[in-house]
């Protein structure tokens, strides 16, 4: 169970995340919505401690994540995988090595620095890639893949970490509808079958409605909505998105609602 208490992050005078209180039980699939600059990304980065909180606590079980340092912090990051909008793969390394970087925390220093991985680790990486349908690209350089393929490799890297929580920061914002659907399906699959908590920033409302058990709405750093998708009324959504509402509701542009828009093969 992940519990945020009065979590706050300041950038200068700006409160990027303002007094966030949340309880997320294990195995939930949570979507965070809100317009750009609402603090979604900062919140996710705080959870993984890519950013340090200014105030407040992040409790996972009994440990306060906000206080971790050094090796313990790295242990937490390895338990709490993250997927990025721009994939953040190492473009010039091959795909399987990228996935193997997911194991770095458990490797002794001499093996990680000389890139020596055991057959067991390699087989595990291949399995993770296979699960995302990417095993055939194992020896290609990551930068030669399309965006959707890179995001699937990034998910495979996350799986290689054997995480307890999977954070996804706008995982489909840079993808076309077809790939967006593949990626979201994969995230749901991981959530349902492995029981991993998935917390996902999403820009489009319908994706959040389709895939998530629970939706959290953010506005100017504050959590303004927290509930199941059916509780999220259109009026509430307009309130959360403000001026960006039309864009967020424009399902054809950035949504995963591809099957309806595309002719279904017979």
């Amino acid at each position: 169970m992940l519990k945020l208490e009065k979590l706050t992050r300041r950038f200068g005078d700006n409160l990027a995340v303002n007094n966030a209180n949340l309880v997320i039980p294990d195995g939930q699939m949570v979507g965070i919505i809100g317009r750009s600059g609402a603090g979604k990304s900062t919140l996710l980065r705080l959870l993984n401690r890519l950013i340090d909180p200014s105030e407040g606590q992040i409790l996972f079980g009994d440990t306060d994540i906000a206080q971790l340092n050094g090796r313990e912090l790295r242990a937490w990051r390895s338990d709490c995988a993250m997927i990025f909008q721009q994939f953040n793969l190492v473009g010039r390394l091959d795909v399987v090595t990228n996935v193997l970087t997911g194991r770095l925390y458990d490797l002794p220093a001499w093996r990680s620095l000389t890139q020596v991985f055991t057959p067991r680790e390699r087989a595990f990486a291949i399995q993770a890639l296979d699960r995302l349908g990417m095993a055939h690209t194992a020896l290609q350089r990551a930068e030669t893949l399309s965006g959707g393929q890179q995001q699937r490799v990034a998910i495979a890297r996350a799986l290689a970490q054997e995480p307890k929580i999977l954070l996804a920061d706008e995982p489909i914002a840079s993808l076309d509808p077809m790939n967006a659907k593949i990626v979201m399906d994969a995230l749901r699959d991981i959530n349902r079958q492995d029981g991993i908590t998935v917390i996902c920033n999403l820009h489009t409302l319908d994706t959040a409605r389709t895939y998530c058990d629970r939706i959290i709405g953010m506005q100017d750093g504050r959590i303004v909505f927290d509930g199941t998708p059916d509780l999220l009324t259109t009026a509430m959504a307009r309130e959360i998105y403000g001026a960006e509402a039309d864009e967020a509701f424009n399902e054809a542009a950035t949504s995963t609602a591809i099957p309806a828009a595309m002719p279904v093969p017979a």
Partner: protein
Amino acid sequence: MTDIPMLGGSAGASGGAPRDAVAVFEAHRAELKASRRVWNIVALGAFTLALGLSIWISNFYPDRLASGVPRIFEYFGTIMPDLQWDVLFEGRTEDGRAVPGSLTFWYTDFWTYVELIWETILMAITATLIGTAVAFALSFPAAANLSPNSWIYWISRRFLEFCRGVPEILLALLFVFMIGIGPLAGVMAVAIHTAGALGKLFAEVNENASDRPIEGITAVGGNWFEKMAYGVTPQVLPNFFSYAMLRFEINVRASSIIGFVGAGGIGQELNRVISFYSDDRVLAVLILVVLMVTVIDLISERIRLGYIGRENFA
């Protein structure tokens, strides 16, 4: 047409007469012009002063030049070999003497030169490898975006600046005093300078590296070394390689002159023939040095282009 309402508007805002704006502009313009003229005069004055002082200090007077310049041509005349076409390719006679006018006579010490040129190239390779290794290790702490903390950054930066700032030949002079005449002093001097020069360039390459892969490695729980090894190194390696090869070309030149102070290589021989003889031996060594530098440049360029080409098509 659009000027008029704007002028009126600004005049209205300032509350003065409408012509004020133009007058202010003209005054400002005149002021700018005048200040620029003053600066130009100051710059010209400083330049003339520097020129006059320089001529006076270095005794660069026309009469000295007039007597010196002919001597230059005279000197180049004396180092020309006296080759004769009919005996050009004559070998040595039975008693081991070379025929005057033949290539063999001109290049009597050919194999000594070749050996020294070989030593020069080895010195350059060793110094480049050592210097590159040090530069590589220091380029991460010396990059503003990667350094683990500010004092490590400060120390590694200053260290690299120092290594780069001291001229190679000065270092070589000190090393020759400390460890004696020979190529080791040259290797050390060139390696230290290389570490400084490459370290600064490498650090700049690191500062331009994309932070996305680094963030990716941070997020999987990688430590600082893993971030550098997986997040940064693959991105910057081709650039590092190109810079190291270019540095190798520079180091071949440096190794060829470092012998002037006794630090090994062909420079030692070059110094000897120029200082003690003024005959065709000077040109003989100079030709070999220029040839060596040119050939190394060509080879290095091929390797660089070959590597980059392979990178792009892989």
